């Protein structure tokens, strides 16, 4: 059984289809990234999973509980942590008072440990908090009752790089303890660093769910070649070569119409086949790198911005 199972989950607002027939499963113990630009339907999905809004069709099970069964879902929240994308607390209360309320309702086995890690200023009123401190307080309330599933909506917004790093380490350690993490993001490097699998959502529709490696393989490699001698154009006339750019500085004597000395392209074919074709020239530099996830993203979005 998956920790979260979406089954045709749909939210139709009439003028906009915020979530369109979403079906996928988040397995127990994995870190699942839910990726998409702002307005793609990530928060809508999460808010349906937690019972804040009702689906117009389909359903989902969270830790085995149908989200339409309010009583069961409320009960299950003892075992769920949630960080909202716009985390807000009673501004008049101090951080400590907020944590005391949360502790009384759901427990606080891990409060001290989390405060060591994220340390929001507990004696100050929330009204005086920076957005980073609100987020830190939110991380403590999310994990303090030792949940087995956490649902995080854009968790690193507002955190400084140091805390972001600490959070990533923490999340990995949680995953090793068997905690399931479902987190949404529009920041690709974050997803790539943390996730086992990624679901990409666009305009309310699920585009793909893939292990992060598959996504990177499918997206190809960026190949850069700088040769001391000219290479014939035939070399790059091959299936799987995209976004080709070639150049030939004058001093190396290449015929720019048929030869080049420097090139960059994205390659989605078999990299060994490509290397076998490489002429036996003296090379200045050759590099083969994973395509940045931004490009992967762009491919799924067909060049829309926000990536």
């Amino acid at each position, binding site marked *: 059984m998956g920790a979260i199972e979406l089954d045709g989950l749909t939210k139709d607002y009439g003028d906009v289809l915020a979530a369109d027939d979403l079906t996928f499963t988040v397995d127990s113990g994995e870190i699942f990234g839910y990726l998409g630009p702002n307005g793609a339907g990530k928060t809508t999905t999460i808010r349906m999973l937690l019972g804040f809004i009702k689906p117009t069709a389909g359903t989902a099970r969270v830790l085995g509980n149908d989200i339409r069964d309010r009583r069961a879902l409320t009960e299950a929240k003892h075992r*769920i942590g949630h960080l*909202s994308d716009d985390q*807000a607390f009673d501004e008049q209360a101090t951080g400590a008072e907020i944590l005391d309320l949360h502790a009384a*309702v759901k427990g606080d086995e891990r409060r001290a440990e989390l405060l060591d890690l994220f340390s929001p200023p507990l004696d100050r009123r929330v009204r005086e908090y920076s957005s980073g401190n609100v987020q830190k307080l939110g991380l403590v309330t999310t994990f303090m009752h030792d949940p087995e599933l956490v649902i995080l909506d854009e968790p690193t917004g507002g955190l400084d790089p140091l805390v972001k790093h600490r959070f990533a380490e923490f999340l990995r350690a949680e995953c090793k303890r068997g905690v399931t993490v479902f987190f949404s993001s529009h920041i690709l490097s974050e997803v790539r660093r943390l996730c086992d699998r990624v679901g990409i959502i666009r305009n309310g529709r699920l585009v793909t769910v893939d292990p992060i490696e598959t996504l990177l393989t499918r997206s190809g490699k960026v190949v850069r070649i700088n040769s001391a001698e000219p290479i014939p154009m035939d070399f790059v006339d091959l299936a799987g070569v995209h976004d080709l750019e070639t150049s030939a500085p004058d001093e190396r004597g290449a015929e720019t119409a048929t030869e080049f000395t420097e090139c960059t392209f994205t390659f989605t074919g078999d990299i060994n086949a490509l290397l076998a074709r490489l002429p036996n020239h003296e090379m200045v530099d050759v590099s083969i790198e994973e395509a940045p996830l931004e490009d992967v993203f762009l491919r799924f979005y067909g060049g829309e911005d926000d990536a």
Partner: protein
Amino acid sequence: MLEFARYDAAKRIRGSVYLSVGISLLAAFAVWAYPSYSQAMDMTQLREAFPEPLIRAFNIETMASLEGFLSVELYMFGWIILLGLYLAYSAASIIADDIDRGRMDTLLSMPVSRPRLAFERFTALGVPILAVNVVTPVVVLVSAGLIGESLSIADLVALHLLSIPYLFACAGIGLLASVIFDRASIAQRVALGVTFGIYLVESLLSGTDYELLGVLAPMRYFDPNEVLLDGTYDLLGAAVLIGMTAVLLAVSQLYFVRRDI
């Protein structure tokens, strides 16, 4: 259980102290003003001088005794109108303000059902309601003693006890507005408007063919004159107010559960 009620109750203590002080000042002022009024003029004539709608609106029976004077100046004005509106206004932010400011998601990500949340936060309004009803009668009795008047302690205590269900019923109106409207400012305005509106309907239509319209108004079931002047306690009225509060709470919970946030 009751974690949210406790939390909210603690948050309401400071405001309740201010409220009790304010209303006590009003009470002390009303008692203090009575002798100079009654010496300066014929209080029966003063009553007659009010236009008929105002007599009805304030339910003025007599002003020729401290009891009658307090009924009008303190209880009709201070309790039925001022506190009634204050409670409706206060209750109107219970749910709407958290939705408005994006705090509801944080609250509901805890294992708490919406009906329980609404109920617990509603009960926390008991803090200002109790505070003002404990402090003010003491102030009234002491001030009356100071001007050499005596009041029936039993009647005064009964009056304040009977006002508790009245104030909760007004708060119920606010709670309903609070679950219907997303924005606290709108919920508060609606709660004030509706509460004051039904007060006007009830007081201005009484004695007319449309009197029946006031049957839903909480003000119909709480009459300070009756308690202070006649010493009769309308327990049935109190029961109706308790029932009204229960219905408003239940409808609010139902609406809150069914809506998207």
